[in-house]
């Protein structure tokens, strides 16, 4: 049968639908579970954010590390639980996301599905809709991005879709927050009367339906339990498609199935799955043709115009590099005043307050030291970087939300090919700039195990947010005037080394051709400030939790290692100092062969941001001298407030200086910063600028942190890849830092 004939017959599907026994759950139960399903880029997350906002809870799907968003709330007297399914193009069982979505729908049987459909891209979105309808779960369609479709001059017959699919269709715009109330009301109405809102059973054409009827007969006679357990229509279609997973679970197959499919195979060829996909696609195409009218002459879209520049053969990569540079510069400039402020507050008012409190209750001296030098200084030295991390996450979120991230992957595809990967692997790498841990988890979007492993191996070379604190301290001390450029050089070094190592791995561990690549580039959209803030918070939260929990724990541990055995006079004789002293000679050629530097690096094995905290502990002696003028509590609070305002002012001023206007008083600032941060001043005595650069290079490259290690082991189920990463990175870190220091000395940059 031709696709044309199929279409004519199928829409609207004429068959009356008799609800199956056991298919629907009673509606009286109090919480309505709503699964939200849709294509990637259909605006699903924006829609959920707009509906649920701060009530959103982000977790993981059980057993896997794909993000799971959930929200529970009351609406119009009903209790609604929204479950966000991963974005998929289809419900076939070929990617992790598809398996999660379909397992949830089939096994958990939500009360209803909200199918988020991109109104500007109806046909492809309806392909998934058709598959969702097979599940026989009541459904409401959110015809999202409706405003854009209208602006493009599309005329969509909403009533027509409702009639043909038998479900409620609500035009929405998640970004403009329109249609959301109607959507929720319709969802509640549907949940209250599921029988009246079952989607139509679509007709796949005579040959397929005949085979389906035959199998249905066999199932009812021989396997009634199966029909009870699974949505009948879905089960039939999956059995016919030869879905291995379903066949295994149900134990149905063999000769009976062969017999049922004999005619179908003779008429349409052996690949039933392709036949079914064709039938579904024909349904989606037919439906689209019925309900959508496009304007005669499509305008050249803005997206296309931007792409012509951004994806340009010659200018694409320079534009990408420039965008990255601006991002890092803005991150650094915007957040630095706030970071300085937090630092000053912690080493000033907070420390004094804790000392005063502990003094008041006559706590022993060592607990005062533990609280101020261990807990407050340790965690505080990391908290200083919260503004930086959040600023970076904000810009990364913006790049993701605006659609540029996918372009970056496109532009970088050619470069990625040289290291045996394709552009899609670039996205985890770019995420690695925020934090390596989510980046390693993000490798699961790559279908091929070879790509996954290679990408995960290279991700740690992407300089993550945790390394930023170390750079910032050293940049503040040694290169205050060229902060942005030095920072940029480190990130670029990571990228270039990733290319080099990728090339090496391609020739050794991963011989063979890079697999095919296909990826959608979403249209450019201006992300709303609200969704930017929500996602920035979600990403930054992990850092805060880390700082609050185990960085705190490690700070305390490091304090003990630095102060044990009991009564050590000099830090050098502490446990950490002793180990550091053993390692130190190995770091001598790199320019920082001191026990202090190596002890900090050892502590940083747990998490790289700890390097800074430990340095604070080691280098800073107790300063009892300047306690003469102790300000009162009132004065302290005033200082906290006024200095914050000053920081905000500086931050705003820095934005202008980012774009070429010379920094107002860089030198003065630097002097002040050094004054404010005793650690920076002390570092200046300990390192030469060249050694400082070698040190931050080493921090960039030496082994991935413990959390990243856990992520890698969890993701691959073996220690193998982490072991390789550990080995090659240690080697690389030592080699490159040595090259920087010795090379620098050779060309006369001073030792």
């Amino acid at each position, binding site marked *: 049968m031709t696709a044309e004939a199929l279409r004519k017959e199928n829409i609207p599907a004429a068959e009356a639908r008799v609800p199956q026994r056991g298919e629907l759950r009673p509606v009286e139960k109090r919480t309505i579970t709503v699964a939200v399903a849709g294509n990637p880029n259909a605006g699903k997350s924006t829609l959920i954010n707009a509906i649920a906002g701060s009530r959103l809870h982000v977790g993981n799907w059980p057993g896997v590390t794909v993000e799971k968003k959930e929200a529970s709330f009351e609406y119009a007297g009903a209790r609604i639980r929204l479950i966000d399914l991963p974005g998929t193009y289809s419900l*076939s069982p070929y990617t992790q996301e598809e398996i999660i979505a379909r397992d949830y729908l089939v096994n958990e049987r939500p009360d209803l599905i909200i199918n988020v459909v991109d109104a*500007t891209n109806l046909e*492809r979105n309806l392909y998934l809709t058709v598959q969702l309808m097979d599940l026989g779960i009541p459904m409401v369609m959110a015809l999202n991005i409706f405003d854009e479709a209208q602006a493009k001059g599309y005329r969509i017959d909403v009533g027509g879709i409702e009639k043909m699919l038998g479900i409620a269709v609500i035009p929405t715009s998640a970004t403009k927050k329109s249609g959301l109330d109607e959507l929720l009301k319709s969802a509640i109405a549907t949940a209250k009367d599921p029988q009246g809102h079952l989607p139509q059973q679509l007709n796949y054409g005579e040959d397929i339906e005949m085979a389906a009827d035959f199998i249905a007969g066999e199932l009812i006679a021989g396997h009634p339990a199966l029909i009870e357990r699974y949505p009948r229509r879905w089960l039939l279609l999956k059995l016919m498609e030869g879905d291995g997973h379903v066949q295994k679970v149900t134990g149905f197959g063999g000769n009976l199935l062969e017999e049922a499919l004999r005619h179908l195979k003779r008429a349409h060829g052996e690949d039933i799955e392709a036949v079914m996909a064709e039938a579904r696609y024909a349904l989606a195409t037919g439906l689209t043709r019925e309900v959508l009218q496009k304007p005669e002459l499509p305008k050249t879209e803005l997206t296309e115009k931007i792409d012509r520049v951004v994806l340009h053969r010659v200018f694409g990569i320079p534009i990408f590099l420039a965008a990255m540079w601006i991002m890092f510069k803005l991150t650094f400039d915007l957040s630095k005043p706030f970071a300085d402020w937090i630092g000053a507050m912690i080493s000033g008012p907070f420390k004094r307050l804790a000392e005063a409190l502990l003094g008041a209750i006559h706590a022993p001296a060592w607990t005062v030291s533990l609280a101020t030098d261990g807990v407050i200084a340790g965690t505080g030295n990391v908290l200083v970087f919260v503004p930086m991390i959040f600023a970076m996450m904000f810009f990364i979120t913006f790049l993701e939300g605006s659609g540029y991230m996918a372009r970056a992957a496109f532009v970088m595809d050619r470069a990625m090919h040289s290291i045996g990967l394709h552009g899609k692997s670039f996205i985890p790498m770019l995420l690695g700039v925020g934090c390596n841990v989510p980046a390693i988890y993000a490798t699961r979007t790559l279908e091929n195990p070879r790509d996954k492993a290679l990408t995960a191996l290279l991700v740690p070379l992407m300089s993550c947010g945790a390394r930023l604190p170390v750079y910032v301290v050293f940049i503040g001390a040694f290169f205050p005037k060229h902060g942005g450029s030095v920072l940029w050089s480190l990130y670029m070094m990571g990228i270039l080394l990733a290319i080099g190592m990728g090339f090496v791995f391609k020739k050794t561990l991963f011989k063979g051709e890079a697999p095919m*690549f*296909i990826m959608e580039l979403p*249209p450019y959209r201006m992300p709303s400030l609200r969704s930017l803030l929500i996602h920035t918070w979600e990403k930054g939260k992990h850092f805060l939790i880390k700082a609050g929990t185990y960085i705190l724990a490690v700070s305390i541990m490091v304090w003990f290692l630095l102060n044990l055995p009991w009564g050590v006079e000099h830090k050098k004789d502490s446990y950490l100092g002793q180990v550091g002293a053993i390692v130190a000679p190995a770091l001598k050629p790199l320019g920082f062969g001191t026990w202090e530097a190596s002890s900090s690096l050892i502590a940083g094995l747990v998490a790289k941001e700890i390097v800074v905290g430990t340095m604070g502990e080691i280098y800073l002696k107790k300063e009892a001298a300047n306690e003469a003028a102790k300000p009162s509590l009132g004065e302290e609070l005033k200082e906290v407030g006024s200095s914050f305002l000053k920081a905000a002012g500086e931050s705003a001023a820095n934005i202008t200086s980012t774009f070429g206007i010379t920094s107002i008083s860089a030198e003065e600032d630097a002097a002040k910063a050094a004054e404010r941060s005793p650690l920076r001043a002390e570092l200046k005595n300990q390192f030469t600028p060249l050694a400082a650069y070698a040190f931050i290079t080493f921090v960039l490259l030496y082994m991935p942190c413990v959390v990243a290690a856990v992520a890698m082991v969890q993701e691959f189920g073996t220690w193998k890849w982490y072991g390789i990463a550990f080995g090659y990175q240690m080697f690389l870190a030592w080699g490159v830092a040595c090259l920087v220091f010795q090379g620098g000395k050779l060309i006369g940059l001073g030792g």
Partner: protein
Amino acid sequence: MVPLGLLNPGEQGVITAIRLTPTCAPGADRQKCDCRVEDMGLRVGKTVQMLNNGSPILLKVDESRIAVDRGLAMKIMIKEVGR
């Protein structure tokens, strides 16, 4: 019939065949093949427009912009229909 990869930017064509890789043959393990090509809307009968013919290639299919490998684009056969 020409491979999709030979279209010039701006030109359009109708997909006439998708030459599946051997792993994509009926009964083969589909997890390893490129059937996502079809899920993403590149199917026989579809009109595609070449937006950017480099490496990779950027296509417009309906309202989506799809980036594909050159290698993959050479396995998709089309009939040219001009600009």
